[in-house]
Structures are given as structure tokens and as C-alpha cells.
């Protein structure tokens, strides 16, 4: 493109596991006495392993609002969402509704499926047949800051 100024092109972000390796340095060895624990050091515990089963289809999404507090999902929490998981009755999902992402409980009823908030005073929303891609992804974990 001739109009492109010779400037920085934003390149891919580093992959998380490459971008932030936990420093694994051997214990300092003051005078040649190795730590008895050195032989047992295999690796550190990686929270990603626990939270992410399929990295390519897992996305983090932040919660805004209070309609899911009874499900343990609070304002400001981070959802670990896997788009590869098929929603079943009872799944907590992120759905695309009216052009926005929203978090709801997915319920399969006799006539139709619905998206159900879990907090006093919020109505549930029926899903029409044609809204096939309404479910954006299934919530697998909630990351909630306690203090």
C-alpha cells in the first residue's frame, strides 16, 4: 500500500505461555551444597492447565452486572469461556443477544430453549429457532476476586 507510512506494524501478541515464563532458576548454590530438593523440582503449577482445556477456542470475558449472582457470577468477574463445548440443559453460557454479549443459564424446555438469569427479578428469554448462533460459548470457570 503506497499510502502506508513507514511505521510500526502491530505484530501478534506473544502467546501467554511464551510471554510470561515463570522464572525457573536453580536454587542459589552458596558453596557447592546442592539443595536436597533439587532432584524433585519438575515444574511449577500452571493455572492455565487447570482452566484451559482447549487453548484455541478458549476466551476470557469480563462480567458487567448483577443478574447472575445466584449462580456465583458477580460484577467484574472473569469468565473462562470455551466455544468448543456444546451447550446442554443447565450450562452457563455467554450468548449474543440484541447485538451484545450476555451471560445466562441455558435451559432446554419442551417447546424451545431459553436463557435464564439467576437473580431476583430478571425475566428469562426464549430463544427462537432461527437464532442458531445465539450461544457464543459455554462458561467453564469463573475467576472471582475475593479480597
Amino acid at each position: 500500500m503506497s499510502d502506508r507510512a513507514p511505521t510500526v506494524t502491530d505484530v501478534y501478541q506473544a502467546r501467554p505461555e511464551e510471554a510470561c515464563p515463570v522464572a525457573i532458576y536453580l536454587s542459589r548454590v552458596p558453596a557447592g551444597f546442592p539443595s536436597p530438593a533439587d532432584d524433585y523440582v519438575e515444574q511449577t503449577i500452571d493455572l492455565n492447565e487447570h482452566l484451559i482445556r482447549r487453548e484455541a477456542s478458549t476466551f476470557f470475558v469480563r462480567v458487567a452486572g448483577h443478574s447472575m449472582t445466584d449462580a456465583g457470577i458477580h460484577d467484574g468477574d472473569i469468565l473462562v469461556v470455551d466455544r468448543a463445548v456444546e451447550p446442554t440443559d443447565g450450562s452457563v453460557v455467554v450468548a449474543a443477544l440484541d447485538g451484545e454479549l450476555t451471560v445466562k443459564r441455558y435451559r432446554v424446555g419442551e417447546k424451545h430453549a431459553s436463557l435464564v438469569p439467576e437473580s431476583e427479578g430478571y425475566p428469562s428469554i426464549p430463544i427462537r429457532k432461527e437464532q442458531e448462533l445465539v450461544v457464543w460459548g459455554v462458561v467453564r470457570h469463573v475467576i472471582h476476586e475475593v479480597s
Partner: protein
Amino acid sequence: MDTAFALVDCENFYVSCERVFEPSLRTRPVVVLSNNDGCVIARSQAVKDAGIPMGAPYFQWEERLDAMGAAVRSSNYALYGDMSRRVMHELEQVALRLERYSIDEAFLTLPALERDELYAVAQQLQRRVARRQGVPIRVGIGPTKTLAKVADEKAKGNRPVDTTLPPPGRVYVCPDGEARTAMLRTVPVAELWGIGAAWAETLHEHGVETAEQLRQQPDSWLRRVLTVVGLRLATELRGLPCLELEDVPATRKSLIRSRSFSGRVTDEPTLREAVGKHAQRAAEKLRAEGLVAGYLEVFITTKRFGEPPHYANAAGGTLRPVTHHTPILLRHARRLLRIIYRDSPTYKKAGVILQQLRPETPRQGHLFDDPDPDDVALMDAVDQLNRTMGRGTVGFAAAGVRGERDWTMKREQRSPHYTTQWSDLPVAKAEG
């Protein structure tokens, strides 16, 4: 044939990425603009249908886009890069082998199955990527790379629907026998992969207008008129693979630039300047040797003994596209340093390591994958000045020019870095 080749192409890739995280865009026309918001570099189907061309200067079409209610986004390469990585990773789950061809295209090998089975595999792939990454893909399949490319063009001919769902029909599997002959009769030679304007003209003079005519030419004629490259192309059109998938080269050469500090360094600006200098030197070295790097690492370390406790760490990141461009390397070096920098230790040494080095080869690739000629000219000028006038005659502010502020590009309507920044995560409402 032992394997089938598939060319997977993400439909309107940048637009599709924007639509994943902003569902309201799914039903609207969308364009994505180039760096500095100058040109239209990605269009949704509705925008294509409106006749707004690829690469069109935005200001010329601003009113028209406005009138059609189009959403306009500045390019968000952090997002597109991450989504590309995810799509490629997904395709790798299904492919026997994969060659990443550009940010939004990949060649795959698949088991050689019957034609209807290959259709089924391609449609599964479409559903899988649409479901998991939210990106619609087009698939062309054939017994060779060249025929996969032809098939992809055929798939393109099936009119898409403007949605994130893979439209049925955006798949084409190259047929056999008579049907293949009939298909290749409809393909002009000028549209074949690797046939430039000059060859098209030559072939026209010899009365060779279609892919079918080209593959019927005798080998000796092909070799004489189009060199061995043309012969290979014709052979591929006959269904015999000559072009293999290009794997990521296994070369593990690396380049290190580092130095111990003479004094005590504790503050980030000084450390940043040092890392910047090393990155700049490393970039010069790369260019001098005609190499590009695919991976950048930054490391820092304190004195090994004594107080305060020893601290050493490193952070690295993949560079896509591969680069030897100083500003890019500087920027990423700074970002990586920010990740590992800790307050207060007395640093002893800092440096950068470039890995996954490979020769810089001009390749027929993606429009936006190749370095901008202006960028190349700039780097050449910088290197030339530093060679003739002495090192450091011309540098980059990030490598230490006092009082310079970091400049930023004009990207007024850029979407958040949804997948690569904690502060930019997509938001799900829990309000009703």
C-alpha cells in the same frame, strides 16, 4: 493420490474477527482500514456488493459507507494475529500437515478420500472453525496445491451470505477425469497461481488461453517457453503434485546482543534504553545478513551473589509476520521488558535474543504480509547512514533519544485488544 491438498481461506478475515467480539456488526456492513486509517483493507460482503474496491482510499468512500450504515474499524493487528493463531491451531487438529500461507490462509494435507467424503470433511471444518473461533472459512480441495488453489477460486464463485455462519457451498472439491477437463476449460491462464502478467501475455500470443490448454502442452514446449516453473505448474494441473507443503524451517540459529552494565542500574528507563540499543543492533545485524526473525526474547539479570537477592528473568514472543524491522523489534522488546521488570534490584546485564532466523525471501504472499517498500527503504537509509557516518548517526527514539515522546499511529476506531490484554476483555452483560 496419497493425500489431498486443501486451501483454507478465512472469509473477510479482519471483518470476521471484529464480528466475533461485537455481535451487532454481524448484521451491518463493515470495513477495516489500513494503518493510519488511509485505505479500506477488509470489507464485509455487503460492502463488496456495493462496489467499494479493496484498497480504496477511505476519504473517497466515507460518505457512501456512512449512507449505507457501515461500521468502520481501524486495523487491530493484535486481535487478527491472535485469531489467526487460533484458527491455524484448530486446522492443525484436523490436517495431516499444515502450511501457514498468510495471516488468513493455510494449505492443509488431508487423507485422499472420495470426492463426496472430502466435501463432508471440508464442511465439518467450516462448522468447527465457525463454532470454535467464530470465523467463516472457504475451502478448496484438489490433488495438488495448484488445483486446490483453482478449487478455492471456484468456491469463491458461490455467492456468500453475509453472516458468521459458513455459507453452504463455499467449498469446492476438484473433480476427476472429464469433469476436471471441463472445469479447467473455464479457468483463464491469467488467473492461475504463479502466472504473472508477462507469462499470460506470452501464452496469449501462443493461443493458450485456458488452464486446460496449458496442461495439454508438451513438456518440452512448457520448459522452453515458461521454464521449469511453468512445467511444474502444468504437471500440477495434471494432478501430479510437484509442490510440497512448506514446513516451518527447522533452523535454530539465533542472534544474541547483550552487555553487562558498567555502573549500577536500577531504574526501568535506563534498562529500557539498553534493551532498545541491543534490539537496534540486532536488527541491523539481521538486515546485514539478509535474515528475518520469528521470535524475540528479552532477558535481564542482577548480580548473581550478594544482596538484594538474585533476580533474573526472560520473556519472549512470536513475531508474525517475521521481521527485521527495527521499530517493530524495539516496540516488542519494550513490551517484553515491561513484563519481567521488577523494581529495586540492581541489574547487572540485559540483552535480546532473536530466534527462528530464516533468510528473507521474497515470496508470493499476502498483500499485507510483505514489508512495505517504504519500510524497506527507510531501513536501508538508516543502515547506510550508520555505516557511512558512524554508528548512532540515525537511531530510533526508543533506543534512547532524550526527551522524545513515543509516537503513535492514527487508529481512531480501533477495537479493543480483546484476546491479548486483560484491560480489553470482551464484556458480557449480566443486566437482564
